């Protein structure tokens, strides 16, 4: 076995080390995504999904190409590893994988436009003195307009945030 040194790049995830801690990002993966979708010149936006988006089945609008849609959403799911702030938006668009419509593709485009605004962002795991485990839980009651199920959301931290 050979020691290849510190991890730098693995499965599209870049890893950087600094005095502050460990930083992971998928900058190259994001740029490749723009190239593949031909969105290099698209406009940018500051958030990945609108408030009160009310995205439902959207059956009256035209169907879009299914495999293409699934590929795109699959890539976005992988991206939410280091871009967890798109996790909710991605979970919304992935609910319509089996019958994607125009409205859903628009939502996917919106996420890509958001990524375009900040392709270099990643997750920083800060060095800390005290370990303090805390999980924040939240729920959006009856958030889905399709079947009125609620949406779960939680995140765990090892440092005090507030």
């Amino acid at each position, binding site marked *: 076995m050979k020691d290849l040194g510190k991890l730098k790049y693995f499965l599209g995830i870049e890893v950087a080390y600094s005095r502050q801690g460990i930083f992971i990002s998928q900058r190259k993966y994001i740029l490749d995504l723009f190239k593949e979708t031909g969105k290099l010149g698209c406009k940018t936006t500051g958030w990945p999904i609108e408030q009160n988006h009310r995205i439902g089945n959207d059956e009256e609008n035209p169907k879009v190409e299914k495999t293409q849609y699934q590929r795109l959403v699959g890539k976005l799911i992988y991206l939410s590893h280091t871009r967890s702030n798109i996790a*909710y938006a991605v979970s919304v668009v992935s609910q319509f994988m089996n019958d994607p419509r125009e409205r859903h593709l628009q939502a996917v485009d919106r996420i890509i436009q958001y990524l375009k605004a900040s392709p270099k962002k990643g997750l920083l795991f800060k060095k800390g003195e005290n370990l303090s485990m805390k999980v924040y839980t939240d729920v959006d009651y009856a958030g889905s307009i399709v079947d009125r199920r609620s949406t779960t*959301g939680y995140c765990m931290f090892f440092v005090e945030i507030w």
Partner: protein
Amino acid sequence: MVTWRSKKQNVVARSSAKAEFRVMAQGVCELLWMKIILDDLILKYEAPMGLACDNKFAINIAHNPVQHDRTKHVEIDRHFNKEKLDDGLIAIEYIPSRLQLADMFTKGLPTKQFEDLTCKLGMIDIHLPT
């Protein structure tokens, strides 16, 4: 931030407290799982693990041993949470919605709040001066 999740629940909740309970139970599971990992890494963590929630009603029921008629349908999650609370493994605290970091995983947010929370999650661009 180390772990997170955003998921549509697989049952219909009849009250917001029930939905909240479900998430709390999932949060507790996540904490217990993380504790096992820390144990494997030989990292000691004795203090109760924190669980922050912005629904006072749900917190009250979690602490209150009296079984109300209206909370019957959340029995399993309720008992699970209560058991871990009694064991001193977790401590539930109330946080106001404006400090709720998990907001981002349940709904679309206005730009300002979205950016603030993103930053708090530790999601930054290291190439930019902060």
